[in-house]
C-alpha cells in the first residue's frame, strides 16, 4: 500500500532515513574493525554512535511499520469474535493507540524542553544534548498518533482494508 499524501511521504521518508542509518551502522562497524585490527586505532565514538543509530531506527521506522501493519499483535481472541465485536475491539485498539501516543509524545516534548532548559547531556565520548533524542521519541509517537488517527477514521467510515 503505497501512500501518496504528504503524511505518507513524511513517514516513508523517515523509514528511508532509518534504512540508510542501518546501512551506515554496518559500515561503521566494519570500519571500526579495520581500524582496530589493522591500523590499531579503534574508533572510540563507534559504540555510542551505533547506540544512537539503533535508537533512531526504532522511532523513525515505527510509524511506517504501523502503516504497513507490521507491528505484531495477538489475534487469539479477536479471531473467534463476530464481526461486530471485532470491530469494537479494533476501535478500542486504535483509540488506545491515539491516547497513549498523545501522552507519550506530549511528555517526551515536555521532558525534552526541560532537558534543553537545564542543558542535560548524554555524557559519553561525545557529549550530545539529550533533548535531541527525546524529540525523536516525540516525533515518532506524534507520527504514530496521526497514523492511528488515520486508521481510526478509515475504520469509522468503513474503508479500512480487511486483513
Amino acid at each position, binding site marked *: 500500500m503505497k501512500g501518496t499524501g504528504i503524511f505518507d511521504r513524511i513517514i516513508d521518508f523517515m*523509514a528511508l532515513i*532509518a*534504512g540508510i542509518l*542501518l*546501512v551506515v*551502522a*554496518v559500515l561503521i*562497524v*566494519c570500519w*571500526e*574493525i579495520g581500524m582496530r585490527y589493522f591500523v590499531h586505532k579503534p574508533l572510540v565514538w563507534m*559504540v*555510542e554512535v*551505533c*547506540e*544512537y543509530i*539503533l*535508537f533512531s*531506527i*526504532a522511532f523513525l*521506522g*515505527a510509524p*511506517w*511499520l*504501523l502503516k*504497513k501493519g*507490521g*507491528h*505484531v*499483535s*495477538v*489475534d*487469539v*481472541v*479477536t479471531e473467534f469474535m463476530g464481526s461486530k465485536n471485532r470491530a469494537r*475491539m*479494533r476501535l*478500542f*485498539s486504535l483509540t*488506545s*493507540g491515539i491516547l*497513549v501516543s498523545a*501522552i*507519550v509524545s506530549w*511528555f*517526551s516534548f*515536555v*521532558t525534552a524542553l*526541560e532537558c534543553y532548559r537545564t542543558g542535560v547531556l548524554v555524557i559519553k565520548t561525545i557529549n550530545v544534548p*539529550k533533548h535531541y*533524542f*527525546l524529540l525523536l*521519541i516525540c516525533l515518532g509517537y506524534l507520527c504514530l498518533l496521526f497514523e492511528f488517527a488515520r486508521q481510526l477514521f478509515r475504520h469509522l467510515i468503513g474503508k479500512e482494508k480487511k486483513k
Partner: protein
Amino acid sequence: MEWWAFLIVIVGIFLFLLAAGLPVFLAFTVVDVLGIYFLWGGGAGLQQLIHSIFSSISTFVLLPVPLFVLMGELLFHSGTFIRALDTLDKWMGRIPGRLCLLSVSGATLFSTLSGSSMGTTAMLGSLLLPEMEKRGYHKRISIGACMSGSLAMIIPPSALAVVLGALAEISIGKLLISGLLPGFMIAAMYITYITLRCALQPGIAPAYIPEKVPWSEKINALFIHVLPFGSIVIVVTGLIFAGLATPTESAGMGVLTTGILIACYKKMNWVVIKKSVDATLRITVMMFMILTGSTAFSQILAFTGASRGLVEVVVSFDLTPMLIIIVMQALIVVLGTFMEQVSIMMITFPIFMPLVRALEFDPIWFGLLVLINMQIGMTTPPFGLCLFVMKGVAPNGTTMMDIYKSIAPFILIDLFAMLVIMFLPSIALWLPSLMRY
C-alpha cells in the same frame, strides 16, 4: 496493596490489552503509562518513562540483531542460497524422503548463516513444497520438514539469542555458541525421524530416481555454491568462539563477507539491497519498539515488589530446583502458543532470571532452553508465526490443519531435545566452556 494484587492487576491489564488485539508494543506502553502514572506520582513519573524509553534500546549489545537478520535477508533476496540448496540436492542420491532431508539439511546450513527463522521457513516452503507435492509426498511429512527453518533461532548467528542475552544480562557470545551443538542435535533428530518414518511408511514419501549427476559436476557445484558459505560461518561463529571478535564485530564482518560473496556471484544489485534492508527494518523496528517498553515494565514489577514476592513464593515451595525449571519452561511453552517471543522474555525474565540465579543454575544453559522453547513457540499451533509463514507459501489447498498435523511430531522432537539438554547440560555448555572470553 499487596504485591500479588499488583501482579494480578498489571499482568491482567496487559493480557486483556493483548487479547483485544493491540500491537504488543502498544500494550506494553499502555501498562507502562498507567502503572507509572498511578505508582510514581503522575506527570513526574511519566517523564521518567521517557528517560526509560531512551535507555531501553540505545544499547550497543543489541546491534548484532539487525546485522544477523540482514545477513539472512541478503542471502535470501539475492537467490545465492537457492544454488546451494540445488547443490545439496545433487548430493542427496536415492534415499528415502530425500526432499525432506534436503529441507532439513538446507535449513541447518542456512541457520548457520542467518539469524531469522521466518525467512528460512518461507524460502524452504516456497522452493521445496511444490516439488514435494509433484513427487507425491504426503503433507504430513513435507510441511513439517520445511518448517525446520525455525532452527535459525538456536543455531548461531541467532538474532533472538542476542535479545535474550541482553535482557537476561548474560554473555551474548557464550549464549550464541551454546546453541551450536543443540541445534545440530535437533537437526539430527529431525533427520532420524524422517528416515525412520519414510522407511516404515514408504507411501508417505514415494522414492524416485533423481536425475543422474556426474561426480565432476557434484564436486564442482560443492566448491562453487556451498563451500564459500563456510567463510561466513568462520567469520561469524568462528571469530566469536575464538574470542577474536565480539558478537557485534563478527556480525559486522558477517554482513561484509555476505555482501562480498554475493558480489562475487554477481548477484548484488540495488533491488537486492533495497529488499533486504526493507525486510530487516521491519523485523528490527518491530522488536525494538517492543523493547522500548521493557525497562519500564520491569521497573514497575520491581517497584511493586511483584518480582521479588513471586520469587520468594516459588522458592518457599518444597519443589526440587529442576522441577522449578521445568515449571518455568512449561509456562513459556504455554505463552509461546499465543505470544510473540520478545514479549514472553520481557514478561518472564524479571521473575525467572533472579530465580535461576538463586537456584544456582547456569544462566547460559537456562537461556538456551528458553531459545529452544521460543523455537517451539514459533511452530506451535494455533498461532506460531512460522505456521502463518508456511500457510502463505504452501501450495493452494493446504489447510492450517494440514500444517498443524505435519508439525506435531517435530514439536515433540523439540520437547524431547529440551529434556535431553535439561538433564545433560554439557551438550549446551561444553563449547562455551572452551571459549577464552
